[in-house]
């Protein structure tokens, strides 16, 4: 999937919800390119915590500053993100 082939505003809104509900600090989605990751969409980091890695699927991952609370609900959040990334293209 290329940048701009999904509704990034909707995803950013959802990431804002995640940030507020799970106190994640910065939270963003990256795309895997070979052995590295590339920024796709999201909210910038606020401080200097190591990024927490949560895999969405083989192609995408969510990174955030503090993922402890989010990890508990990760399965449902992941499903929603998958839907948004693949089904909600504009």
């Amino acid at each position, binding site marked *: 999937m*290329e*940048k701009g082939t999904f509704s990034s505003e909707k995803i950013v809104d959802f990431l804002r919800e995640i940030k507020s509900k799970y106190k994640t600090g910065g939270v*963003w*989605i*990256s*795309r895997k*390119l*070979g*052995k*590295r*990751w*590339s*920024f*796709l969409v*999201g909210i*910038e*980091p606020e*401080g*200097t*915590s*190591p*990024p927490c*890695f949560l895999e969405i699927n083989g192609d995408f*991952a969510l*990174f955030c500053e503090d993922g402890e609370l989010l990890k508990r609900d990760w399965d449902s959040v992941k499903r929603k993100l998958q839907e948004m990334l693949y089904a909600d293209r504009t």
Partner: protein
Amino acid sequence: MVQIESWIKGRIKEDEIDKYLEDGRDFINDEEIWEKINRYKNPDKNWVREIFDKALRIETLTPDETAALINIEDEDLIEEMKQVANKIKKKVYDNRIVTFAPLYLGNYCVNNCLYCGFRRDNRVIKRKVLTEEEIVKEVEVLAGEIGHKRLITVYGEHPTMGVDYIERSLRLIYDVKVKVRNGYGQIRRCNVNAPPLQIEELKRLVEVGIGTYQVFQETYHHETYEMLHPKDTIKGNYRWRLYSMHRALEAGVDDVGIGALFGLYDWRFEVMGLLYHARELEKRFGIGPHTVSFPRLEPAANTPFVQETKYKVSDKDFERVVLILRLSIPYAGMILTAREPKEIRDRLVHYGITQMDASTKIGIGAYSDRYSEQELERQQFLIGDTRSLDELIRDLAKFGYITSFCTAGYRCGRTGDLIMKLLKTGKEGQFCKLNAVLTFKEWLLDFASDETRVIGEKLIEKELLEIKEKLPRAYDKVLEYLKRLENGERDLFF
């Protein structure tokens, strides 16, 4: 021969130039640039200081403002500009210098540029393209013996080094993992200096994980460009080259690097050209250049043009090039390569440089065949600073700089527009500091000589005190990560 000719014919896609033109014109207006340079002779001191403040706020300067800086003659103001340049660099990137190595994969070329040792008609050059096995051997030395984590791979414009070859070489490079003293060595970021590519080709390189994509315009001056690059060659098309970065960003490349070869035309014009290029990318894509390069023309085998050029840049003017670029595009990384002699690099490192290469060899296959002599028939030019990485690290430490092997942005996707935002707000500098300490520690454990390790550990202690004071929330985590590195873990980052 026929194959090469048909390959050349298929290279330039006019529609991938025309789509970016405005009213049929490109974004470099030679008359306008000279008009601005000539308009601001002896700029008002107060205005100049306002420009300094703007640069310190990490805002890209306007062409008028850069033209004013170009015209500063007052020695006191130049001294002030040096301090401003240093402050900008510290604010955006902290006190770290990132190191890398160039890896030349071949020296075949279909172009015939007057100033280049690798030009098609130069019969004295020994031509070679690295095989897959040779690429791996080179990387094993770079990542496994020297300890580099970043490369800039350099390709010629020739069907033997087309996009298939570039793609394959990147995969090979990223796959090399070498067991070293306490952990393993690997290349984590592979930047690419390649000829202008088509959008579909660039998309293929995005999928492999290309790092920064560099194409230098050489000279932004249309007439000079035309004179130096024969019209019947691919490189003879000024606009195909000028819009390389547009195509790259459209293809999804995260980071692009621009540059000019200083010595082909008036340095003042080239500085303006680089600024116009940066502003154009910001305007179109919201992302400026990740790096700016400013190599000076060096002697090359059987290439009399280099001696004859009237635009040779003196050391004094070169210093101004660096300062003015630092202020004009304050968020960009600035690369000072080993083309320059040690004395120049030691002086200019304080004026806003962010990246330097070391243990550099530019002969094809020169890392793995232990080739230590420089030979013009084998390389594009002679390098001026032959220090090893170990030596450079020691020298930088004496100046108070920490060497960074950070590739954290690529480990989590802090790239593209995200990193651009972080650079402009000064937030990235905090990550730079933390990741410099961690990656430097990793290198000390795996590659440093005893002498450098002692100096390096002292430097880390000093950095830790600063982190404790300025970034207290990160301090405990840094200590934990350092311990984990000592226990053999690798690739830890913020």
